């Protein structure tokens, strides 16, 4: 399914088969409207503009069935927003969200019981309703949607708990009675309860201890096998994504800057930002490190730099970089990067 025109982004995702989920040139802008006082001031000539945050800016991302795509970026890059757009929690300012090639109906207007896309959240504290017992946290949605009869709720939840490695006694307990790792498992059970095909994991292991993180990552891998799931795994942790993902996508300030199969990305990073990230990540190498930092800080998404967003911090920036947005091009098989250094 190749496209005639130079639309590399679409080509990048529509290679072999149709992706399960496709975000096609999506953008999300958060606009803070002027309140009444500001509107009046504006009438009198004050130079006030509405504040617009370009959280996601023209992103195209496709995930194929059975794939694990790792989405890496730092705070403020828009990866969480993109994740929420993928599941439908945020509406799209531009672009389209396609499921098996067809436009997806927005969350509020969906009918029917199954939600094929679910999310596993980051914060094990805030993502579970502190007033509900586990049986209701996990069992409410399937019962409400008719997947499971009310009288079978407990049995159904127990089977899910077993699958995620929690004891049966967890059924009647409240979230505060569990540790962080156990709460993460409850969150996974809740997502699995409605029989999804696609899971977006938004920093799902970031808040966990290393040893628990390993357990939960193994759980993700096992569940993927068992339930034939597809993942969009959002993280800032390069090591975790390297272990889990088939393909890795790097985001910076609302845009995708590089995308490649995992091994390729980690061995031959192309974009200067990716190179910087990989160089900076602490490793268990005991030779005393001089930490090579990417200088500067993430610019404010209210006023992103012109042209290539990364140019103020890029060690290889040229004049062109501040004027023209680099094209997201294929530079090696299935390896895409948006950088002027790759030629015109």
């Amino acid at each position, binding site marked *: 399914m190749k496209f005639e025109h130079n639309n590399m982004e679409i080509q990048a995702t529509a290679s072999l088969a149709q992706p399960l989920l496709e975000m096609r040139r999506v953008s999300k802008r958060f606009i803070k409207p002027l309140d009444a006082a500001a509107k009046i001031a504006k009438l009198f000539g004050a130079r006030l503009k509405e504040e617009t945050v370009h959280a996601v800016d023209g992103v195209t991302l496709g995930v194929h069935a059975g794939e694990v795509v790792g989405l890496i970026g730092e705070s403020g890059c828009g990866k969480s927003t993109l994740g929420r757009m993928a599941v439908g929690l945020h509406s799209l300012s531009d672009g389209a969200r396609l499921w098996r090639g067809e436009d997806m109906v927005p969350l509020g207007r969906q009918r029917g019981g199954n939600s094929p896309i679910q999310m596993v959240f980051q914060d094990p504290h805030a993502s579970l309703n502190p007033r509900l017992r586990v049986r209701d946290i996990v069992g409410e949605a399937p019962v409400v949607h008719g997947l499971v009869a009310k009288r079978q709720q407990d049995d159904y939840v127990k089977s899910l708990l077993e699958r995620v490695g929690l004891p049966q006694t967890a059924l009647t307990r409240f979230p505060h009675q569990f540790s962080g790792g156990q709460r993460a498992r409850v969150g996974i059970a809740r997502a699995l309860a409605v029989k999804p095909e696609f899971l977006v994991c938004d920093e799902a292991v970031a808040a966990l201890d290393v040893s628990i993180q390993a357990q939960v990552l193994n759980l993700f891998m096992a569940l993927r096998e068992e339930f034939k799931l597809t993942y969009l795994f959002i993280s800032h942790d390069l090591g975790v994504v390297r272990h889990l993902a088939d393909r890795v996508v790097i985001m910076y300030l609302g845009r995708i800057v590089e995308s490649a199969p995992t091994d390729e990305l980690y061995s031959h990073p192309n974009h200067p930002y990716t190179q910087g990230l990989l160089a900076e990540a602490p490793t268990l190498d005991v030779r005393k490190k001089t930490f090579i*930092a990417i200088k500067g800080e993430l610019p404010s998404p209210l006023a992103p730099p012109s042209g290539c967003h990364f140019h103020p911090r890029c060690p290889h920036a040229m004049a062109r970089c501040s004027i023209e947005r680099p094209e997201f091009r294929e530079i090696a098989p299935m390896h895409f990067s948006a950088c002027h250094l790759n030629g015109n």
Partner: protein
Amino acid sequence: MEKPVLEVKNLTTHFTSRAGIGKAVNGVSFSLKAGEIMGLVGESGSGKSMTGFSIMGLIDAPGKIVDGSVRLNGRELVGIGEEQMRSIRGNKIAMIFQDPMMTLNPVLRIDTQMVETVLAHQNVSTAMALQIACNALRRVGIPSAGERLSCYPHQFSGGMRQRVAIAIAMLNNPELIICDEPTTALDVTIQSQILSEMQKLCKESGTALIWITHDLSVVAGLADSVSVMYAGRIVESGTVREVIESPRHPYTHGLLGCAPSRNVRGRPMQQIPGMTPQLLQLPSGCAFRDRCARASELCRVAPHLVHAGQGHEYRCFHPMENTREAA
């Protein structure tokens, strides 16, 4: 033999509640020389933060330091009373927290807070204090330090705030800084910047550093020595090279094995089964034995400290093989 800046011997902090006594810190001992960076590594519930707070004297009821000694340059800190401790905190020992807003007052300007810290411990004029503050901000790499002094904390980004917190910690040239997970909440790039700043600062000023973290990889690049804590006890300690390249305690070994970089892509990761035991329900003897594949009847007794040479110590009856010897 150089005299240590900090000497902690058998520090024990208990938390009493109706449900029992929680031994948050259970006989912790270590020492630090001037300019040395020590990583104190452990997961949640290991007691690493409580150790830091105990040294600073920040433990309040129902917690209490019930035993042990903490000597700063020979001076005993346990039990000296709040008045004296206050003159030491921020002056001889400083602390940096995970959330910089625990150091920074959101309603005061940065210069106000910094000048306050300086004047509390040094006998200088306000103008001099302001100068010291400005220099400190410059040292931690905050651009246009002079202007930024008059800003409020909310006008800084997260990484910048943490740098300001570090600057405040360095104001009175402390002999020891305790950092409690200061970069855990920050991005890799910012963490990198802060780690490089800390390395530089310690080298320049000869300040000793205790870096409390759960991330062994940060410690690997930064620290000279490392102590691994589990359930309130130090289970292994030694130089960073020794401990990371040749861990003897099964917990350390397991922890290292959990790191994604030590695992093969696509295959299940090595994991430590089970969870950290609750402090109120610690098993007798070695607290790790319920999760340890090498545990035996012997482990029902608390293991003693074994010295493995070159400062490498551990507490285990069934240590892992010494891979460095073999190599």
